[in-house]
């Protein structure tokens, strides 16, 4: 079974001295037997989406060979610079990008936000899954409301114990909504989520290279779920959603 990681990144982290470089990401993926990972450059989150997306594509082109960790590119866009984004988004799938990821919490824009509505409509038209950081309470609720207008899969990223009930409620409301597991830290959380929304709606994420992949993997592999459920979470579901086989 190939492990497919929904949550990795690479780049600079100004607020803390830490090594989140691309070589470190690749080394850690390999060390933990993670064969494939969605990834993006932090430059796109923290500085400029276009430049970041270009860097992401370049890194993924250089690491697209089966046998080593394979990187699959995720696009991002900052709604604060929405004007002129339509053409970019329309070209994402042609360029090989596999999903679109949004960072309302890191970038400080609200979810009740007209530029976001336009961007989501454009991503939906492009047919790409939408990944949204949903660490804070209230985010998953608003995403669930926005999801009614969309047809693509939506992935709530980094949902921790403090927003866990809300994430599950959102996923129960709309079957397009999935949850990524990197912040599942409470005892029994993987089992509870699988029971509440089904293992087919959960996607393994490590948070590499900043986080410990061993911790994230242990939460799934040491759970009481069946081997087939674990396989879905560790890669099967993400392959289906991103259409990567």
């Amino acid at each position, binding site marked *: 079974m190939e492990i497919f990681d929904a949550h990795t990144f690479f780049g600079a982290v100004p607020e803390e001295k830490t090594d989140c470089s691309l070589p470190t990401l690749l080394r*850690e993926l390999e060390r933990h037997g993670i064969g494939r990972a969605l990834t993006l450059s932090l430059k796109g989150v923290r500085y400029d989406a276009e430049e970041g997306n270009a860097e992401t594509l370049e890194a993924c082109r250089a690491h697209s060979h089966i046998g080593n960790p394979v990187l699959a590119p995720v696009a991002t866009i900052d709604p604060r610079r929405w004007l002129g984004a339509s053409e970019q988004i329309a070209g994402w799938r042609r360029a090989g990008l596999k999903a679109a990821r949004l960072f309302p919490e890191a970038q400080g824009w609200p979810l009740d936000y007209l530029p976001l509505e336009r961007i989501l409509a454009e991503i939906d038209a492009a047919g790409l899954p939408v990944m949204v950081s949903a660490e804070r309470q209230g985010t998953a609720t608003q995403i669930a409301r926005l999801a009614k207008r969309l047809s693509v899969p939506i992935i709530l990223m980094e949902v921790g*114990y403090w927003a866990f*009930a809300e994430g599950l409620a959102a996923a129960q409301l709309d079957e397009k909504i999935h949850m990524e597991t990197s912040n599942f830290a409470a005892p*029994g959380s993987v089992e*509870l989520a699988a029971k509440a929304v089904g293992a087919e709606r959960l996607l393994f994420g490590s948070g590499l290279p900043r986080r*410990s992949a*061993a911790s994230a*993997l242990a939460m799934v592999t040491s759970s009481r779920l069946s081997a087939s459920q674990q396989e879905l979470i560790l890669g099967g579901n993400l392959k289906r959603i991103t259409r990567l086989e």
Partner: protein
Amino acid sequence: MKVFDVHAHLGRWPFPIRAGNSDDMVELMDRRGIEKCVVSSTMAVVYDMKEGNALLAGALEKSDRLLGYIVVNPNYLDESQAELQAYLENPKFRGVKIHAGYSRKSCSSAEMRELLAMAARWRKPLLIHAGGESEVRTLAEIARALPGMAVILAHGGGGGWREAAAAAREVENFHLEFSASAAHRERIAEAVKLAGANKVLFGSDMTLLDPAIMFGMMSDVGLSEQDREKVMWDNAVQLFGE
């Protein structure tokens, strides 16, 4: 390798977590391979110190693998003194717990300084939740002035973990544990490098967090077998006894 967990809680959480009583905790310890742990009452931390400590005293009688922290609160100094007197002769209670966040008192406040001095008279280990660079520096200074009490900084001081590791190198009775819902890959290794393996203890923050998170972080660290044993067991036994 035996594992001694110095940061655990017994009680309920306002989140979907199904591990509320001592049987749940021991079952989780068995599943994760934890031999012993030192527990504080969730209720005592987040709500009522006295009621929570009393409930914990009862629960500790049910298992010889569970040891206890008495929770004290800088907003209730007289009552905290009474709690220390009521329980610290009980051999099941091996330490004192303070949560600066829930009590909303910084380490530099007069009340916190008085409480820390009061707790130090019992010469038992203290587990304290306080975070950020400034708090860590203040706490390290206080620990230096109270050499008879081992101070364990929960979560490594959060964002102040580098300062905490530097302080642990300098201050003999200042120790760290690194439980976290965000399993940072580098922190434990860096802290061991900075402060030495003698200064880092294994803490999980169960039952809020699954100890699997901490075991994963430890497996990512790449310590020598000897250093790993210190972190997982020996350092805790030195402070708390078996």
